[in-house]
């Protein structure tokens, strides 16, 4: 809590419809966000129990600077991932962090399963378990509308909800946060579904007095100036992350058509520039961020002859244009937006959905699966068929869709095609085919996300790829990001929030930490996550990279399988040694 030396945790038991609040001094050293959420997961998870068992916990945490400093906008969720079976962590912006802060909590732990579908209403004055039977089955947009109209507090509340994919326990279903943001990866939507939890509405008017207004506002303004008046974050407002499409394409690093290619003949037609010129209608922000990186694109769809059109607005980003665009061979911005819209309504993770469909396209072509399985003529570039398939994934309409609803890892176990399944560490690949640091980074990262350690960034900025340097980068960057994500600072602001700035902001709110404290935190969070993973059975022994990644050139040419395996071995040895030292010190 601001100005207090404890973490205020709200525990909710859905089965018994009870809540409890604990002020945890012992969690204070983990600060918030990823640190606190990982620790709470470690305490509450059940080791040998299915990830979707009702006793598995769902945790959401914010940090001590959330909302009260610029671009400190994220909430962090942890859970046992039904997708990988191990550590699940996902981050979302929007208004959620503000709403949790205003309701007076630092973290929320949800356990149990409601006997019938419910949605939760959490305010500073009450916890309510409301009947959601009528909205079970509704898509993400309609669910949001119903709750918006039923509940008070426009402007002050956050509404997070699942679609049909989450209800049907698709292991890459997401939780939609305030229409345009998401807890995307690793299947948190299914965790909601397994608890009969359709949505959470949260808001509050908790009194949060400022102890030292002069110093606080001075520091606030300094950071605000850095954010708005330097070029540290300009790119996120202008073209946004889709600027990557052209850049990656020009250096053979844009995964295309299930990575049969690493550049796309239609890249210019779906580039950030083209989206901005043809479809961009507005930009919006998470609460507390003056940047406005959320790009909303509009497309027009003819629903009948005689000039009958509807217009639909969806948010787009690099990862979505990659996974639901170039990777599926989609050639126009309007079509990419149509596919994004379908994924949004169903409540699926965009990256995993695109990668699974790209694999299915090739598997169908190679005869590993049939048209009877897919119920759609999956073919690169065929938008309407992919839209059918997305609906089938969410509904799990037959055995094939039931299987691919467990992710690509399960799909290849049953149907084969492992060699062209774009998986790193059991999670579907993000939109970079830059080289060794990316491939290693996404595989070993705590949550198997490209954002854990940004290996792609090393690949893109290095003058020469050096093995030792790659290992150093991937480990150090992940530790440093553990500090940022424990503070819930948006990673887009990583250049603004250097250590000195972080310490200054912390000191202003009465957390008198030093640089050494931050280093201690980085290690504690990094290794706590590894400890959780190990307890859940995680191991990279005998890990095999998919063949496809070695067949298609990266910006550094084709990767050598032996070298990547060697890098993985080096990484494991280094981290294991550090882990032992850390464990002994505990």
């Amino acid at each position: 809590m601001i100005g207090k030396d404890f973490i205020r945790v709200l525990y909710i038991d859905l089965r018994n419809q009870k809540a409890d609040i604990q002020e945890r001094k012992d969690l204070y050293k983990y600060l918030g966000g990823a640190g606190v959420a990982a620790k709470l997961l470690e305490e509450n998870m059940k080791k040998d129990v299915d990830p979707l068992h009702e006793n598995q916990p769902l945790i959401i945490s914010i940090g001590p600077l959330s909302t009260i400093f610029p671009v400190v906008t994220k909430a962090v969720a942890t859970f046992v991932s039904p997708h990988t079976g191990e550590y699940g962590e996902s981050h979302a912006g929007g208004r959620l962090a503000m709403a949790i802060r205003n309701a007076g909590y630092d973290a929320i732990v949800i356990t149990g399963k409601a006997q019938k579908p419910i949605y939760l209403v959490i305010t500073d004055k009450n916890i309510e378990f409301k009947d959601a039977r009528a909205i079970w089955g509704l898509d993400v947009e309609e669910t949001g509308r119903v709750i918006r109209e039923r509940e008070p507090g426009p402007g002050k509340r956050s509404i997070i909800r699942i679609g049909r994919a989450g209800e049907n326990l698709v292991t890459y279903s997401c939780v939609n946060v305030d229409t345009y943001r998401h807890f995307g990866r690793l299947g948190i939507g299914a965790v909601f579904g397994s608890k009969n939890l359709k949505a959470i509405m949260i808001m509050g008017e908790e009194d949060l007095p400022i102890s030292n207004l002069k110093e606080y506002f001075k520091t606030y303004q300094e950071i605000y100036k850095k954010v708005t008046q330097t070029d540290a974050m300009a790119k996120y407002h202008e073209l946004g992350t889709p600027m990557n499409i052209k850049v990656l394409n020009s250096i053979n690093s844009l995964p295309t058509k299930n990575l049969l290619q690493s550049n796309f003949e239609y890249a210019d037609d779906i580039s950030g520039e083209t989206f901005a010129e043809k479809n961009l209608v507005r930009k919006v922000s998470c609460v507390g961020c003056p940047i406005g990186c959320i790009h909303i694109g509009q497309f027009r769809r003819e629903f009948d002859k005689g000039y009958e059109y509807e217009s639909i607005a969806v948010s787009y980003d690099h990862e979505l244009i990659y996974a639901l665009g170039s990777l599926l061979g989609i050639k126009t911005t309007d079509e990419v937006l149509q596919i994004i819209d379908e994924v949004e309504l169903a409540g699926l993770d965009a990256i995993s959905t695109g990668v699974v469909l790209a694999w299915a396209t090739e598997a169908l072509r190679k005869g590993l699966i049939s048209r009877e399985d897919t119920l759609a003529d999956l073919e690169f570039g065929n938008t309407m068929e992919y839209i059918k398939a997305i609906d089938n994934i969410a509904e799990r309409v037959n055995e094939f869709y039931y299987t691919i609803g467990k992710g690509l890892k399960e799909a290849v176990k049953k149907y084969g095609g492992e060699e062209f399944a774009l998986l790193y560490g059991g999670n579907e690949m993000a939109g970079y085919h830059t080289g060794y640091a990316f491939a290693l980074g996404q595989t070993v990262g705590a949550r198997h996300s490209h954002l854990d350690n940004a290996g792609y960034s090393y690949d893109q900025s290095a003058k020469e790829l050096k093995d030792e340097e790659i290992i150093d980068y991937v480990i150090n960057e992940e530790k440093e990001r553990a500090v940022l994500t424990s503070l819930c600072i948006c990673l887009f602001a990583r250049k603004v929030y250097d250590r000195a700035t972080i310490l200054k902001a912390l000191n202003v709110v009465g957390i008198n930490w030093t640089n050494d404290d931050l280093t201690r935190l980085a290690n504690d969070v990094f290794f706590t996550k590894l400890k959780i993973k190990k307890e859940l059975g995680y191991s990279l022994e005998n890990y095999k990279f998919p063949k496809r990644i070695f067949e298609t050139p990266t910006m550094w040419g084709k990767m050598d399988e032996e070298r990547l395996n060697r890098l993985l071995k080096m990484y494991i040895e280094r981290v294991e040694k550090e882990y032992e030292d850390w464990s002994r010190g505990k």
Partner: protein
Amino acid sequence: MPKVLRADNMNKCLGCFTCMLTCAAVNHNNHNLAKSSIKVKTRGGLQSKFAATICVACKEPACAEACPTNALVKRPGGGVKLIEEKCIACEKCVSACIVGSIHMDYDRKIPIVCKHCGACVRMCPHNCLSMEEVSEQDDR
């Protein structure tokens, strides 16, 4: 000349709420944006446009007329000034303001009233808000 707050460019709004966070901090020494006198919200879900509920600086403020203890006095250029010591938290000003600009701070038991200080304007990254110079005779 006195200045009053205007929100004439809300189509440019990003929904970052920095204006509200600033108002709550600077004027009410609080991090909770529920304490802000400017209120940004959507017209119905994030797919719709943003709107700002602000004090429109009435020349003949109904809120002041409704106040039984003269705790709200006319401000030069429009709007009102709150004299906290006189306020009895009767909330009559809240219902008198038909644009919905006034709401209660139940922790301090006073209404939250815009001072037209311009702090929100200075922290708006997209220039949606402005301060307009008005003569004391100007009518909106």
